[in-house]
């Protein structure tokens, strides 16, 4: 069993940024564990641009964004163990890993940063009706196959779900000669960024059909067609609105799920809304010395925000390693109130400048997001538009939280 000060699980954008921050805060004994052959995580297959505007003030592609961080990690000689999967994580920060060269290794860390990212919601996960033939893929898998393995999954394509990966793949497949017939979205609004709707669909005349979903997939060996229906405001199929679209491929872009199987092994408490850990304002989980950041904590829309968050986690882990665990007093719960789906962090204390990440439940214009304590206004921020697909960040200076009437604050949108 090898002892390490800090072990970071995942060398994607979160893991790399956390490592840099920990290093720059004085930690030298850092190990990043990465299951792929190269670091960079999901960015390696996101060859489109649109990354880095916030962090670098320029527009980069995914691999370029990853490369910038990777270079900094390499300059600092931080160890990345690639082709290595963590198969076990325990609350005492014990890790069992398997490495393609060496075999099974065991580590004991002082602190662990969870940066495993997310997985895609599948056909099974959304109870897609119909038979189980070839030709139904998730968008991320399609992207991996096309951009990393040079494989085109099909020619006549329908995409279910207007999440960003689905939109990006609509364009990508079109560029590679496929016929993308439509993007279907069960909600009355898109789950993708405006930019992607414009540049991935409108640019290529691909119709976006809101309030539409798939009720049957047909074909014995390979997909031959799908049956589509319109849905009402309760998302129930509207009888008589069904029609058939011939296609050989159905691509699902129906959401990401934080990949917390290891976290659960380590008794990390999971928030049932985010699917990620329930964290304090230093991104520490309920398990002392285990921190979480990036998509494993909650699904982000911009990688730049992942980097920001991971820097906070890396910094907090460094502090933990140097000065040990401290019991916190004045713990305050942050409640997602009316119109807010979730808020990160869920637990805060007094005397700290805070930054909240949150998502609203539905799109709206001219809204105010308020932070309340016992129904008294502590802070507010107004927005011309709010959208579930876009994460909202709100800062709260410590002066605003000098004294609270109850041990919880609530975030609402009005």
């Amino acid at each position, binding site marked *: 069993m090898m002892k390490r000060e800090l072990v970071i699980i995942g060398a994607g954008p979160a893991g790399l940024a956390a490592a840099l921050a920990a290093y720059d805060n004085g930690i030298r004994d850092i190990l990043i564990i990465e*299951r792929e052959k190269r670091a960079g995580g999901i960015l390696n297959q996101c060859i489109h641009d649109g990354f880095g505007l916030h962090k670098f003030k320029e527009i980069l592609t995914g691999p370029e964004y990853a490369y910038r961080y990777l270079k900094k990690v390499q300059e600092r000689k931080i160890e990345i163990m690639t*082709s290595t*999967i963590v*198969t076990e994580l325990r609350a005492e920060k014990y890790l*069992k890993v*398997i*490495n*393609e*060269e*060496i*075999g*099974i290794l065991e580590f004991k860390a002082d602190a662990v940063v969870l940066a495993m990212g997310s*997985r*895609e919601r*599948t*056909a*099974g*996960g959304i*109870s897609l*009706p*119909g*038979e*189980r*033939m*070839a*030709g139904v893929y*998730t968008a*991320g*898998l399609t992207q*991996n*196959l*096309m951009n*990393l*393995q*040079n*494989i*085109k*999954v*099909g*020619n006549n394509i329908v995409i279910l779900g207007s999440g960003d990966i689905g939109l990006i793949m609509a364009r990508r497949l079109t560029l*590679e000669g*496929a016929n993308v017939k439509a993007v279907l979205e069960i909600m009355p609004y898109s789950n993708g960024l405006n930019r992607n709707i414009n540049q991935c669909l409108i640019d290529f005349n691909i119709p976006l059909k809101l309030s539409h979903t798939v*009720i*049957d997939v047909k074909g*014995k*060996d*390979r997909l031959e067609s799908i049956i589509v229906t319109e849905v009402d405001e309760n998302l129930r*199929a509207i009888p008589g609105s069904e029609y058939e679209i011939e296609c*050989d*491929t159905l691509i699902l872009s129906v959401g990401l799920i934080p990949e917390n*199987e290891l976290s*659960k092994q380590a008794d990390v408490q999971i928030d049932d809304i985010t699917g990620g850990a329930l964290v304090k304002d230093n991104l520490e989980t309920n398990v002392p010395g285990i921190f979480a950041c990036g998509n494993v904590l909650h699904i982000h829309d911009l990688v730049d925000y992942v980097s920001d968050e991971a820097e906070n986690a890396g910094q907090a882990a460094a502090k933990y390693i140097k000065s040990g665990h401290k019991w916190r007093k004045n713990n305050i719960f942050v409640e997602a109130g009316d119109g807010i789906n979730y808020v990160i962090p869920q637990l805060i204390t007094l005397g700290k400048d805070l930054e909240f990440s949150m998502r609203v439940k539905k799109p709206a214009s001219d809204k105010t997001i308020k932070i309340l304590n016992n129904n008294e206004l502590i802070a507010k921020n107004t927005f011309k538009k709010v959208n579930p697909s876009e994460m909202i960040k709100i800062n709260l200076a410590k002066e605003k939280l000098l004294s609270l009437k109850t041990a919880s604050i609530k975030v609402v949108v009005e």
Partner: protein
Amino acid sequence: MDTQNYDIAIIGGGVVGTAIARELSKYSINTVLLEMESDVGQGASNSNSGVVHAGFTAPVGSLKADVCMYGNSHFEELCADLDVPYKKVGKLVVAVDKKQVAELYNLQYIGSKNGAELNIVGEDFIKKMEANIDGKAAMYSPNSAITSPYELTIALAENAFQNGVEIKLNTKVLGINKINGKFLIKTNQKNIRADYVINSAGLYSDDIASFSGEDRYKIYPCRGEYYVLDKNSSSLLSHLVYPVPPENAGGYGIHLTPTVDGNILIGPSNEYIDCVDNKATTKDVMEQLIKEARDFLPKISQDMVIRSYSGIRSKIVPPEIGGFTDFVIEKSPRYDNFINLIGIESPGLTSAPGIAKYVVEMIDKMENLKNKEIFNKKRTGITKFSELPLAEQKILAEENAGYRELVCRCENITRQEIIDALHNPLGVTTLKGVKYRARATMGRCQGGYCMARIVKIMQEEFNMDLEQIQLTGNSSNLFAGQAKGWEK
């Protein structure tokens, strides 16, 4: 026309067909098994609850009761011989109100006559065994067990193959004629000549029977849909939990089944359908499954679901009557050496070993079968790395690089297991072939992570072109081709 000669041709490679093949492989007789799909076990054998039944639903004195009881008492040994998972988890048939308690006693009566060990138990006992299940009373069957139905079917086929049975996949029977005292079986591949035909074609057994001039049989396909729950919900359930069977439904009611791999199955529903191969799942039934499951086990939630699938029962009871009837295993009236197996539905998995014995005895009476000098009853499956103790894992990983690469992170499956699955004795090289042998793509990500890797292994290790990579054979191609440079 190129024709191959055999003593016996088995039509249908489900669990029954492969069990018969294995049973016959004990004797000096030349057997071929014909399967129209790209792998064995592609019908009801891979889409059922995987339950080894104790025998309390089959009428006393029926053939079904006989073969089921035989199967129940021999299953553990069979699974041990074939390296197939088997767990005697026990079953609770739960009465939710007092009225249903009487029905429990009726089941106990039938079961006890059949020789099953059954106890009626009360609320406290239920709670002690299944903390999350509510019920007034239950019938507890300690000898009910679970297995992996697809692994068993594959294992039976592989063991039969090792002992000399030929297994012809992708071979669909198009017609059968008796010419010069032998059956000439026309197929979409080479034609087959055989002295005996054993029709274990499941949903298609009525069609095959009609080739022998027997038009009496009609199969009524009856679909059952299932939900599969994530392994991380496995702690919710440790026994089989069944409702009191609904009257004349043709199924046992939607039940909860722990699988040998740690998932929970919800299902199956019970719906007569028109088309024998419509294995669709439907929105309405899926909603019903979750609802009925939650009646038993309220902790079940929709987000635990990782997959849905359906299997089709080959029933001979028409929908207007419903319920069950006995298995039909008999010689065709026109030809003694044409044996029809009709209506082998639940408990077909449990009964397969007994049915195999029964069918082989029928042939033995006509043919006087001779034991082979060497019959190897043991078959070894793929080494399941994740199930080994740490010390053994370390040794294997040190010796073999294939065990150092995890291809599937949900089920912890190594590259070596994928390679072993692709090198299977039956020569199945489809993605589903890998799935049913190594469990890859069966976990919560449903192949989102491992599929790209498995495809790479197929390309690199087996030199397969993209065009050859299929889900299930026929025209189930997974890909359209290369993205770049594919004109060359």
